């Protein structure tokens, strides 16, 4: 298998941009990525584009805006993992030797729904009874609190940490710090979550240029290697499931570590799928950053804050950076690549050499999540 590198990244600031079309959200991120890679966009051999609600042939429409057409384009829908799944498709294209230079895009425009919780498929038996994504995570939170003694005040601290980080990130949607009291007294969405426990909905896009190691060496002195590219889907469970541990991520993490030949202690920085406060804590445990039941103690120790030994979501994560669902995975990856290149700015993790990105999501009855994709990067 060919080694695969990331040689260019593009991130447009997330936010509410109802006046922009999906294409106009995305093309500046793509341009940024190929300019950063210092390549001629006409040299791109294939495009993999992730979106959930962006409509059909979105990759073709974005490339048309850039004047780059007639090449293979694949559009990928995998709920919140759409562009991380597209990244894996791009990785496969290069790792297989099929392509030397590919583009991965993620884009979403959630303001077209006018706000509120994202629409779910009402043919799903759980959605038909009133399930919303906040409610699903809220029930995980309640059960975790019941079993491990986590308090609402402790859970709120996750949001405080996320926004402390996001306030430093010019690409974040919510660049504002919150006090513990502000988190706890905000409007209730689904108990125990107030609004500040939930990621904001918004619009955004990201992109990355992948190259074979040989090609990357010729083009740049600072390639970042992809040392694991993992994708899995939920394992159906007909009956009782322990919702205090995310089965799909536990399994995916094990596969990703095995592929990279690395373990949890090797990870210097991570961008994980903190769509709601409880998720960040569940993922500390799922990735083995700390033992089961000890996630809050790990956060409270400062380990996962900027300046700590293993910063998680230095960009602010989904909670602060925002979560235009189809854009999230590729922007997480772009964040990690910039961290490893020492170009993250005010939210830089000093000396980071190995980083991880993780996007998971999609509600399907009987699954923990529908999809999960994990990437590990090394400098």
């Amino acid at each position, binding site marked *: 298998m060919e080694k695969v590198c990331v040689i260019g990244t593009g991130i447009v600031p997330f936010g509410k941009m109802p006046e922009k079309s999906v294409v106009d959200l995305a093309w500046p991120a793509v341009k940024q990525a190929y300019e950063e890679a210092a390549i001629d966009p006409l040299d791109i051999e294939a495009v993999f584009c992730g979106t959930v609600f962006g409509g059909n042939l979105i990759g073709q429409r974005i490339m048309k805006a850039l004047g780059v057409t007639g090449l293979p384009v694949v559009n990928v829908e995998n709920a919140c993992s759409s562009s991380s799944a597209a990244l894996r498709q791009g990785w496969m294209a290069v790792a297989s030797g099929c392509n030397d230079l590919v583009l991965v895009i993620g884009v979403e425009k959630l303001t077209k729904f006018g706000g509120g919780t994202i629409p779910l498929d009402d043919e799903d038996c759980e959605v038909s009874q009133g399930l919303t994504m*906040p409610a699903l995570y809220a029930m995980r939170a*309640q059960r975790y609190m019941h079993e491990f003694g986590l308090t609402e005040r402790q859970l709120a601290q996750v949001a405080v940490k996320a926004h402390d980080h996001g306030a430093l990130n010019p690409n974040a949607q919510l660049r504002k710090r919150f006090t513990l009291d502000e988190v706890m007294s905000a*409007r209730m969405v*689904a*108990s125990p979550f107030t609004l500040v426990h939930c990621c904001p909905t918004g619009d955004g896009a990201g992109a990355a240029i992948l190259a074979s190691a040989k090609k990357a060496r010729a083009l740049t002195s600072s390639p970042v290697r992809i040392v694991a590219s993992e994708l899995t889907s939920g394992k159906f469970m007909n009956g009782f499931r322990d919702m205090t541990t995310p089965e799909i991520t536990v399994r995916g993490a094990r596969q990703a570590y095995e592929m990279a030949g690395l373990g949890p202690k090797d990870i210097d920085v991570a961008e994980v799928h903190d769509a709601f406060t409880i998720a960040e804590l569940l993922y500390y445990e799922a990735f083995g950053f700390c033992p089961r039941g000890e996630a809050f103690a790990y956060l409270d120790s400062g380990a996962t804050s900027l300046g700590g030994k293993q910063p998680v979501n230095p960009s602010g994560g989904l909670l602060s950076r925002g979560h235009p669902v189809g854009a999230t995975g590729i922007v997480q990856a772009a964040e990690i690549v910039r961290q490893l290149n020492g170009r993250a700015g005010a939210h830089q993790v000093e000396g980071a050499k190995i980083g991880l990105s993780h996007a998971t999501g999609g509600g399907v009855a009987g699954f923990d999540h529908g999809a999960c994709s994990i990437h590990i990067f090394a400098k």
Partner: protein
Amino acid sequence: MTTLTANTRFAAPHLVELDGDQIWLRGGKCRSCGELSFPLSSICWHCRAEVMEPVRLSRNGKLYAFSVVHAAPKGWRVPYVLGYVDLDDGIRVIGQIEGDPKKLHPDTAVRLDFGVIRGDADGTPIYSYVFVSDQGEG
């Protein structure tokens, strides 16, 4: 008490079976391996045989977790209580929980009933199965 009639509208009619004024959850049981399914599936999720027969699931269970939902799409009457219920026969079902959420906690015993879970665009009540707790009723 509300009476079920032929005109009563259900959120997902295929999930339930009506018998006079009683509502049942309509599951499936595999004639080959005995595995239960909810909803009734065509193919057994366990052994993949195609001999699923409809069965009525247990009416009793306990709450695994719940949330009081304050933000939901149009038509839903917020706040409502949504919970995962572990039925006595080993199936976990999501449903709305009637009663005072202050009196509910994980592991509270609940039983099956029916009730209004939302309204449609013109406000017509839409019914479904729900769970009630004896603690929650006082």
